[in-house]
């Protein structure tokens, strides 16, 4: 180990502690300091480690947590960039702080959640054993341009790590074909059965074949543009998954899934500890990683069964007599899915939409018009509606055009007052924040509930 690396890691740890003591959770600065001292600190810190990298538009955090749990249950010491710092400096900080004073990694394994745009920067420095691409949706367009551009960036990232085994979502045509022409070995995962609403999508991020431009045909849908896709003009089609859900009973509890999974040719009864179809995909990805690593399936099946809500993703709280569930929404696909889940619950409910437009959220919020907000606004079980966040006015406008009366929509800028308002409600309340709004709400919620009075979904 080079002295420079040990110094860089030391400086990174000190910077992190100082920031922590001064009440700031900064993850970028320590990583930058480490990189300034040793340009190759990430490469050096990862030496000898096994790395599983998770990228894609939606589901990165939840999938990463499931994989980390699976590896831990399999008896491996495992690191995870938990804080959601998934750009190069954040990942660097996490890995550098893992080094002992002698410069040896303390954990043998790392699960790295990696932003799609940062993938090529990371794989230029470390070569993961496995790379998972969860899915591709339009997301934060102002930062990256377009879905196709993001897909190219991911391909570039994979190209830099030709030995990595890929786990790709078979049901997402943009993802399943993302490694075409590259030499990496691939495992696919997907749903062999339809789920949710069928019928042609009005909006789709993947209407045309990536290779020939022909219009894709779907024999079944699962959600958004995911499903059993094929291209009649060139013959490309959804690859047969190596890990699949083959049975999905129609009536499911609101908090868990009971399904049958196929791993290779073997069938297993499986439980997924989180609701909504997209979590089923996250679970499949995690189980697929276990298979890719050649590990026994049990720890990974156990990990998805006991999966807990990640930071702001389906977390539940009680405030006063009100049961509150927080679901992070960042893009139209995720938001429509969350709303489909809410509309599918069986009791009266209220919904608060908290929309910020800070850099981390994407400053373009026009995607709210692509989400199926009508599904909630026009649902007979829907009661209160709130709009909050730096773009609350745009949100209340969206709710109005979705069919709500102006006097039904409450604009509330102060999260403390918002929660007080909710505390008096008879109905269950869902809070749908985007990223920085989620961080703000969580802080207020933690204060209100003493930081512990929440139970896990």
């Amino acid at each position, binding site marked *: 180990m080079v002295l420079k690396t040990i110094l860089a890691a030391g400086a990174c740890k000190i910077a992190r502690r100082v920031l922590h003591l001064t009440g700031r959770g900064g993850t970028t600065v320590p990583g930058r300091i480490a990189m300034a001292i040793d340009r190759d600190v990430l490469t050096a810190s990862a030496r000898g480690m096994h790395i599983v990298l998770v990228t894609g538009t939606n589901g990165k955090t939840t999938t990463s947590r499931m994989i980390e749990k699976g590896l831990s249950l399999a008896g491996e010491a495992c690191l995870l960039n938990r804080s959601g710092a998934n750009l190069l400096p954040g990942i660097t900080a996490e890995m550098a702080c893992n080094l002992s004073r002698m410069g040896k990694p303390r954990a043998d394994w790392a699960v790295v959640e990696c932003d799609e745009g940062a993938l090529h920067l990371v794989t230029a420095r470390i070569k993961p054993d496995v790379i998972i691409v969860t899915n591709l949706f339009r997301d934060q367009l102002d930062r990256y341009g377009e879905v196709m551009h993001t897909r190219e960036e991911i391909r570039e990232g994979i190209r830099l790590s030709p030995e990595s085994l890929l786990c790709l979502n078979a049901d997402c045509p943009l993802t399943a074909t993302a490694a075409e022409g590259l030499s990496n070995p691939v495992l696919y995962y997907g749903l062999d059965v339809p789920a949710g609403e069928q019928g042609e999508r009005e909006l789709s991020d993947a209407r045309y074949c990536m290779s020939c*431009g022909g219009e894709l045909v779907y024999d079944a849908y699962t959600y958004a543009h995911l499903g059993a896709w094929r291209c009649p003009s060139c013959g490309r089609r959804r690859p047969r998954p190596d890990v699949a859900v083959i049975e999905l009973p129609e009536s499911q509890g609101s908090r868990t899934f009971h399904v049958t999974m196929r791993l290779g040719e073997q069938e297993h009864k499986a439980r997924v500890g989180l609701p909504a179809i997209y979590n089923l995909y996250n679970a499949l990805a995690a189980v697929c990683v276990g298979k890719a690593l050649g590990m026994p399936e049990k720890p990974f099946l156990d990990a998805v069964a006991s999966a807990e809500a990640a930071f702001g993703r389906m977390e539940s709280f009680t405030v006063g007599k009100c049961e509150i569930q927080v679901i992070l929404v960042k893009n139209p696909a995720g938001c429509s899915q969350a709303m489909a889940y809410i509309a599918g619950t069986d009791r009266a409910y209220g919904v608060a939409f908290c929309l910020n437009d800070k850099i981390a959220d994407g400053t373009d919020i026009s*995607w709210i*018009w692509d989400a199926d907000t009508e599904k909630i606004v026009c649902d007979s079980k829907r009661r209160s509606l709130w709009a909050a966040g730096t773009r609350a*006015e*745009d949100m209340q*406008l969206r709710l109005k055009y979705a069919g709500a009366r102006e006097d039904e929509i409450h604009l509330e800028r102060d999260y403390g007052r918002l929660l007080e308002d909710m505390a008096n409600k008879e109905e269950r309340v869902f809070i749908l924040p985007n990223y920085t709004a989620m961080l703000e709400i969580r802080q207020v919620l933690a204060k209100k509930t003493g930081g512990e009075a929440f139970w896990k979904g």
Partner: protein
Amino acid sequence: MTIRICHLYPDALNLYGDRGNVLCMQKRLLWRGIRCEVDSLKIGETKSLSGYDIFFMGGGQDFEQEVLLRDLGSQNGQSIRTAIEDGKTFLCICGGYQILGTHYETKEGRRCGFLGAIDLYTTGGDKRLIGNYAYRLEEPSGTETVVGFENHSGRTYLGKGVKPLGHVLKGFGNNGKDGTEGVRYKNVFGTYSHGPVLPKNPVLCDRILSTAIHHKYGEEELLPLEDAFETAAHAKMLHRICKS
């Protein structure tokens, strides 16, 4: 009274919030007791466009626009040009706006022929022009401000004598240089503003609706609507943009 809206190529041009514009026109007609029918023309379809009053064309990704260009070479391209010359009302945004021009020239110098309905063209640029922006409408479109979000790498230049929709107050507009934003030709409204543009700019939406109603029925008085939410969202964003 019935206004028929045709959403052109919703399958390819629907990049960000575009359907919010159609929803906005539809609701603002319905709230005034005017019937509104919404239909669409998809890639590969051919149908007569003569029965529609308002055409909407949104933005798309480069990849999807390539698929679309093939279709515009067919009868559909001619039908769209005819509808424009006949004085039908058009709202075209971003990619949909660029397509009205004669051509697009990529950074590498490759030239793609476009519809050629209006004398304007677009060239590819290195830096994407991104952000909240504001412009002031110019006659004959009114004099109000419009707020929106722009995100384009193309730079659009209007031909001699071709009127812009407005002039930029803050932001980039057509090309970041000449201060123009969008195009106004016959009854065509072209702009780079997505956001979507209409819900937060009810004056512009009503101008488009009244243009179509006037063309069809010879009258254009629209009943006023309670626009408290619309005005609040507009004012908030305008304030932020001008402050920055």
